[in-house]
């Protein structure tokens, strides 16, 4: 069984989730590695686009941010933010988009906090803010969320709701005025959560080899259903060499 880091399995789990016809809205960091990996694994025809305006980038080298000139090479079009966000909200392309982003806090319904910990007006910790994730999560067909598995991150109520998940429970999004599309999975360094079709509550779907469901629950401040958890397939040799030799040879992100 090949050795792998938790970041590597996180990336590969996300990559396997991306389908051939998906238009992938790529945030900064680990989500880029996942989108690039997907092109070589499950979704060669998937389209990677960045909120900055690079549409269907070839990504010869891993960009370090959505503004990195590496997102501009060999694209179908190089445009700007207005065009990229237009793709998200466009009634014909929006539903095909898969958003991939990370967050500092998440609640039971997949609502995210990328803004602050503590009081908004005088926070203990301030983060970059919504960026484009909020706009993407409002309109994408579905989204994939990367999180570190820590108690303080999986909370009953996020300190600031930056990015909408399922809004509290069934019909929540519709009532808020958003299309009824939301997060499909949460990938952490210990396992994978999904959202119940009816209650839209988070439940444990996968645990990585050698990790027990209860261990994941211990790293969460909220009680979730563990009954459906099965073991995730570990990374294969090819998948790992793809990440290490081709996508992120300098180990910039994973």
């Amino acid at each position, binding site marked *: 069984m090949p050795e792998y880091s938790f970041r590597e399995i996180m990336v590969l789990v996300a990559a396997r989730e991306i389908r051939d016809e998906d238009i992938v809205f790529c945030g900064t960091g680990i989500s880029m590695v996942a989108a690039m990996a997907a092109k070589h694994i499950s979704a060669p025809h998937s389209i990677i686009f960045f909120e900055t305006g690079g549409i269907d980038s070839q990504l010869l080298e891993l960009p370090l941010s959505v503004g990195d000139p590496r997102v501009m090479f060999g694209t179908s079009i190089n445009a700007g933010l207005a065009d990229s966000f237009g793709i998200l909200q466009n009634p014909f392309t929006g539903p095909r988009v898969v958003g991939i982003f990370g967050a500092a806090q998440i609640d039971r319904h997949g609502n995210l906090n990328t803004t602050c910990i503590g009081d908004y007006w005088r926070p203990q910790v301030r983060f970059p803010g919504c960026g484009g994730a909020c706009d993407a999560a409002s309109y994408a067909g579905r989204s994939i969320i990367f999180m570190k598995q820590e108690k303080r991150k999986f909370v009953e109520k996020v300190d600031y709701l930056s990015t*909408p998940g399922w809004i509290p429970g069934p019909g929540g999004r519709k009532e808020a005025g958003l299309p009824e599309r939301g997060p499909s999975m949460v990938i952490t360094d210990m396992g994978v959560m999904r959202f119940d079709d009816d209650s839209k509550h988070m439940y444990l779907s996968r645990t990585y080899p050698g990790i027990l469901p209860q261990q994941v629950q211990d790293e969460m401040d909220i009680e979730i259903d563990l009954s459906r958890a099965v073991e995730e397939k570990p990374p294969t040799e090819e998948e790992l060499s793809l990440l290490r030799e081709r996508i992120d040879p300098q180990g910039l992100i994973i």
Partner: protein
Amino acid sequence: VDAIEVSYGGTARFSPGGGIRFKKAIEGGKIRFEDYTNFQMTLRFLAGAMGLPFMPIRSLLGTDVVKKWGFDEAFRKSNPRIPEKKMAVVENPFARDGTDEKVVLVPAINPDVTLIHAQQADRQGTVRIKGLTYTDAEQAKAAKYLIVSCEEVVETETIRENPDQNQIPFFMVDAIVVVPYGAHPTACYGYYDYDPYHLNLYREMAPDDRTFRQYLDEYVLGVKSHDNYLEKIGKHRLSEIKADLKLGYRAGLGRR
């Protein structure tokens, strides 16, 4: 800086967890701030550029961006540049069968001054941005005064050979300043990559007020001119990040 309207404060890998001084100022209560999303700010500048009062947007309903306002009422009233309302949630008058109801309106922005860095401009002021335009054209056209620094001045005749590649007409530009490597330590597509060495240097010096002060004195306040700044950076580093013409960035640049 007294107050900022922000949608993303950070430089990714070179400021993990968010812009270093940006975080420090907010966590230290040193600055007023108002949070929007990237698309909202894009549309606010687009409205300003097109002389429209506001722009509709559907995203962010049901989030705290709508509910929690950073600037208080008194501050909004006192500063004419700040809209009296952060945003307004309205009914969509064209909703057909009662489903598509709420819409958020965000107010236009017309900056007093916009500064952008572009690849090329001619002496008259026509501006050509290569690669992504981000929201530069919107921010430029929305401004009362526009200052454009550029890598190169090109002949008017040349820049007007393919006018469909120009974004800003000369009469909207108040000043053109030729500043090669003007975006350093960030990148300028087709001319040079970002400078990981300098960004890491900043990342180390910025967190502590004392070393941040040193950084400012050394590279910002203490330099006599942009050339003087480039001398400090050094020829070697500048050539290391020179972009490959075909790619627009420096292939294989060591970026750890």
